[in-house]
């Protein structure tokens, strides 16, 4: 029930009121000394996740204050700001906003949207550049808070699976999960029994809507696995070693026994690329439109599918290549070798970008997570290791497996699946950003035959397994990113949307030369060029320190260029340069002495006499 506000509080005093000197007329912003506001607004509820809450500097109370005034005579209110912000504004009904100000935002979420690396020191720049950088940093802070607040609008929540009363989630069977879950999700678990055409390898398209699989004896099929609508099913009459979707579900690349073939999703063969022969593994780099193939002959070939040219054919010089994966963060190809090393390749360089020694025996499987932070490898020494890729390339954790894992896959939220024989184990981490903890598996499943292919479906909580008995689709709650971006990959896109997306993606195709370990290299200050430009400036002003050609005395006429005089002239120039150098070093010496004196803050030892 709402009562009318008392006149003394909100409404400014009327003009015909008798001015009594005893009682000063009270302005509407002046409250009694005991505000009931504090009790009425309990504040935002505490959330155990939020460690620090970020409140913006100026709450927008001034706007609401004006609205809440009863509009008698609009008087110009000139009052100091602090008074207005002192207590929460009153509305006409007397109700108050229990959560005044904009919604608080946690620091980690805001940190996710920040891109400037403040720890990096830039070379000394002009004050104008520095002020612009400061403005950019301040802007970025504000914007990251806004972006973090926009996460409220995301509709879906990730899945989860928790055992009760200390139950081990690894013991929960797929059948139990199917029973406990809703009917739409239960339909995502299916088994295709295809024993006739050999062990199967599979691939999901970028959006996660379509599935392509190929059997060792030539059976190739593509279907929309959600609606179970078959797009095509053919037998290519040759051994199929690997299969991949190209940029959309319209095209398939099949690595057959002899050569690489490209098929339409209706089963029509479009291309036969004879330059890629005896291919064992395929990887498609979606933002560069590059198909990377590794072959038995030891070559890593990059094929640009938008123009149809081979961009680079690199000789890895390590024998047969049959372990390959891509790093989705920087489009670098990881190859595993039989001497226990993993090498990182980019089409721009003939040599590997890096070589990491991982195992004592050969490497049998490599997988990189979607943020490019962790790499999981497993080898013939029955070890499963997780490496840190964005810093020190050191192993973070290791685990001995009873049987070596021949296949590894990461999910979008950081779950790791390993296929060992006919058993699949899945490990989970703490949150999205932490590596999976290899202590206890999250889920396990036994299949009807040894595993030959493993991939998590992009935006669904499903793991696709290709084995010698066919294809199985397993339910893995909490594997996938719940909220997709409609403009990047939209599983519910229409034909028109797909066409528009394809055109835009082709226009934005990143050239292959830009692939390197740090994808943000283009946005960094090119320190090398900067120093080069500085040097050039010094040169223009008069003297050029390094780029001096050795002095050649000009040949003179009239007998003045005899050998002796040439030597004399040369010596003169050399002495002058020597003098300059000595002068410079004399100037630098006192600076060095200063530096050397400082660090000896420790206790004096007998060896100090040998310190220069």
């Amino acid at each position, binding site marked *: 029930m709402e009562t009318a506000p008392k006149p003394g509080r909100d409404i400014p005093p009327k003009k015909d009121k008798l001015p009594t000197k005893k009682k000063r007329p009270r302005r509407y912003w002046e409250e009694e000394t005991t505000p009931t506001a504090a009790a009425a607004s309990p504040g935002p509820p505490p959330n155990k996740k939020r460690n620090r809450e970020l409140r913006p500097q100026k709450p927008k109370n001034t706007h609401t204050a004006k609205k809440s005034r009863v509009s008698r005579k609009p008087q110009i209110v000139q009052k100091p700001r602090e008074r207005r912000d002192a207590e929460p504004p009153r509305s006409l009904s007397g109700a108050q906003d229990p959560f005044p100000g904009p919604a608080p935002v946690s620091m980690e979420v805001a940190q996710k949207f920040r891109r400037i690396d403040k720890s990096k020191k830039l070379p000394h720049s002009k004050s104008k550049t520095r002020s612009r950088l400061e403005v950019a940093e301040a802007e970025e802070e504000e914007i990251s808070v806004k972006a973090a607040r926009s996460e409220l609008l995301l509709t879906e929540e990730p899945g989860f699976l928790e055992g009760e009363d200390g139950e081990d989630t690894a013991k929960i069977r797929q059948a139990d999960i199917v029973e406990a879950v809703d009917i739409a*999700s239960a339909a995502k678990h299916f088994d295709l029994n295809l024993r006739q055409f050999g062990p199967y390898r599979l691939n999901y398209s970028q959006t996660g809507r379509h599935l392509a699989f190929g059997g060792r004896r030539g059976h190739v099929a593509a279907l929309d696995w959600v609606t179970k609508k078959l797009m095509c099913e053919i037998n290519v009459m040759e051994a199929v070693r690997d299969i991949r979707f190209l940029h959309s579900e319209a095209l398939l690349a099949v690595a057959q026994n002899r050569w690489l073939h490209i098929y339409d999703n209706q089963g029509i063969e479009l291309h036969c690329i004879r330059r890629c022969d005896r291919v064992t593994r395929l990887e498609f780099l979606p933002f560069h439109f590059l198909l990377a193939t590794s072959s038995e002959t030891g070559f890593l070939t990059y094929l640009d599918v938008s123009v149809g040219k081979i961009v680079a054919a690199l000789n890895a010089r390590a024998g047969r290549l049959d372990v390959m994966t891509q790093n989705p963060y920087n489009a670098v190809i990881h190859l595993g070798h039989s001497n226990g090393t993993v090498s990182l390749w980019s089409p721009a360089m003939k040599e590997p970008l890096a070589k990491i020694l991982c195992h004592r025996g050969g490497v049998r499987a490599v997988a990189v997570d979607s943020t490019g932070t962790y790499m999981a490898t497993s080898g013939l020494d029955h070890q499963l290791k997780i490496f840190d890729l964005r810093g020190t390339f050191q192993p973070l954790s290791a685990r001995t497996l009873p049987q070596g894992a021949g296949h590894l896959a990461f999910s979008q939220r950081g779950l790791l699946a390993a296929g060992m024989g006919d058993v699949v184990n899945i490990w989970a981490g703490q949150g999205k950003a932490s590596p999976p903890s290899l202590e206890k598996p999250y889920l396990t499943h036994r299949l009807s035959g040894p595993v030959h292919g493993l991939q998590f479906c992009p935006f669904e909580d499903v793991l696709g397994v290709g084995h010698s008995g066919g294809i199985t689709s397993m339910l893995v709650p909490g594997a996938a990113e719940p909220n997709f*971006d409609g403009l990047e990959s939209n599983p519910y896109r229409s034909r028109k949307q797909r066409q528009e997306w394809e055109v835009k993606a082709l226009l934005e195709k990143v050239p292959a030369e830009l692939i390197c370990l740090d994808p943000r290299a283009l946005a960094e200050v090119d320190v090398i060029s900067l120093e080069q430009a500085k040097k050039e400036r010094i040169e223009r002003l008069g003297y050029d320190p390094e780029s001096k050609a050795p002095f050649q005395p000009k040949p003179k006429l009239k007998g003045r260029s005899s050998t002796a005089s040439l030597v004399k002239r040369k010596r003169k120039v050399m002495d002058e340069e020597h003098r300059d150098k000595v002068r410079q070093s004399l100037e630098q010496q006192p600076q060095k002495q200063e530096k050397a004196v400082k660090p000896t803050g420790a206790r004096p030892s007998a060896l100090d006499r040998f310190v220069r």
Partner: protein
Amino acid sequence: MKVKMLSRNPDNYVRETKLDLQRVPRNYDPTLHPFEVPREYVRALNATKLERVRIWNLTKRNCIRTIQAHEGFVRGICTRFCGSSFFTVGDDKTVKQWKMDGPGFGEEEEPLHTILGKTVYTGIDHHWKEGIFATCGQQVDIWDEQKTSPICSMTWGFDSISSVKFNPIETFLLGSCASDRNIVLYDMRQATPLKKVILDMRTNTICWNPMEAFIFTAANEDYKEVYHTKRMQHVICVKWTSDSKYIMCGSDEMNIRLWKANASEKLGVLTSREKTAKDYNQKLKEKFQYHPHIKRIARHRHLPKPIYSQIQEQRIMKEARRRKEVNRLKHSKPGSVPMVSEKKKHVVAVVK
């Protein structure tokens, strides 16, 4: 056990009828958008190339209107501050005022107002706030728009004055350049000249800095944007419109041409999507402007052959002069050859 699977209701993601818009849920998480920097770089490259391609396709620039203005050369042109009309002066000793909009269908192109003068006028400029304009020829005349004879005339020296400009901020100030290599500043209120600067090269025109009241640029031969056609002969004068969308130029063959300043710009009312796309492209070009490939494309201008070869020549000459200076500096005793800044090098004297 507690289990929940991620399951989406297609009704929330697919539109209901054909007549609805498509639903596009957004997630701005950077992990879902990899390769931000290279993709934006490619977009910036595309934006720069698109601008250049449009310029090529429109025969270098788009000419909108041609007016037969004077008998004889058109010597000067300027717009009125309101933007609805502009003035021209020519070799036929007249000052004419024209409407900015083109003539309607079937109408002849007629000037709004014509003033007959006594001598040839070589330049004209309009006051930034009042209805006053100044012409120059033998002397600097200040005119009122309604009157047919000048309010006052000012002169210093016995040479012809090639151009006159009003200061946009201190609106009573005028600057003029004369053919004996000097620049003279005038005060309109007192109707007297203020100061004279003699330079070592003749200036063709000056331009006041709109942000800083007392700074102006004297122009000899620098140009950034190039507008050219085969039919246009010797260009005498050039002017921007105040909305910075058009450029007008008067030339020797007695024509005034109106050009689009940004050839690849779309005129007229833009939809909000077009505006966002345009702003995004602008910002991308700004962000990546220093990268070598993008800089190369953005700087590229197609020039007619005589101008191009002249530029090459000038560059070689300038390089030679600079090298000589540098060598002189290098091989003399440090301090004996004074380093003169580029600004002061060209000023010969200042007369009060």
